């Protein structure tokens, strides 16, 4: 009955617990998915959590991309499966070429952990329908390799198609091109975000509850989506 949202654990994932908690607080069932198991266990959406999958060896996300579960997810994405990649999850989606561009070392070489203001640039149907256009939110960041880069043509295309989902405001923490904090694929079912919405879901433990909006958006989308969903 209730919506099932998968949270993938890779060796080195850190935020799978918080992501599962955010899913539960939003009102869905969190289903643990394992990197080595290609089965998505019938989930309706997937969260790729933050952390340092496979120790970030080579490049962040470079090895996780080849995990058996990622092959299934890449296929399901083509059929419209909603996927949210957070931090390392965003890196994995870029390495898998599910999202364009790449995330490289912060321009100033420092790890940044702070509460960050963002502006929601695209109220899109799957992951940001709970927000209003240009709404400012506060969501924590914590990364050393979060600088979004892509060639100018790709950046222009993202702008033109409304695929830039959120930008940093009040200071760009990592040198990301065009202040990009989050983007979506062309179809809109996949979003990669460098800040951590799963850490902003509860007044006790986060700077705001703004992050919950991403999870409730997806649940609202699924509730309204035609019932032909369901990855096998």
């Amino acid at each position: 009955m209730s919506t099932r949202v998968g949270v993938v654990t890779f060796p080195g994932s850190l935020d799978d617990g918080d992501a599962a908690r955010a899913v539960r607080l939003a009102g869905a069932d969190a289903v643990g998915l394992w990197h080595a198991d290609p089965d998505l266990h019938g989930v309706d959406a997937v969260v790729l959590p933050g952390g340092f999958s496979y120790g970030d060896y080579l490049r962040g996300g470079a090895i996780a991309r080849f995990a058996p579960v990622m092959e299934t997810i890449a296929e399901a994405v083509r059929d419209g499966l909603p996927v949210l990649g957070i931090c390392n999850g965003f890196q994995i989606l870029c390495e898998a070429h599910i999202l364009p561009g790449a995330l490289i070392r912060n321009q100033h070489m420092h790890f940044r952990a702070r509460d960050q203001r963002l502006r929601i640039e695209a109220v899109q149907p799957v992951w940001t329908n709970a927000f209003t256009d240009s709404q400012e939110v506060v969501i924590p960041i914590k990364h050393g390799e979060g600088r979004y880069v892509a060639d100018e043509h790709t950046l222009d295309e993202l702008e033109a198609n409304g695929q830039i989902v959120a930008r940093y405001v009040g200071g760009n923490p990592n040198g990301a091109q065009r202040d990009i904090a989050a983007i979506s694929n062309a179809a809109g079912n996949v979003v990669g975000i460098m800040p951590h919405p799963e850490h902003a879901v509860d007044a006790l433990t986060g700077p705001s509850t703004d992050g919950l909006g991403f999870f409730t958006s997806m649940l609202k989308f699924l509730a309204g989506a035609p019932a032909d969903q369901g990855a096998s």
Partner: protein
Amino acid sequence: MARVVVDVMLKPEILDPQGQAVANALPRLGVNDVTSVRIGRRIEIEFAGEPDLDRAREIADKLLANPVIEDFALHVDGTVETESDSQESEPAEAPA
């Protein structure tokens, strides 16, 4: 020895803050005539049999380098370097 060496470098247009930090430290060594430092990665692949440049190129393209931000070159260890064809890849498209 069946060893192929892969050199991975950030594309010239991608800022290399690590290299910049090294360049900025050089004056402290009394070195003032260096205009740029860029840092890459050298990967040595041992094949069981004959070194296979085509396989090595595939490994480099799919895993060792990210063609969005990096170029690579490879050569069989001990031979003259042969620049790879790390061709400009088209912008990665998200599947619809």
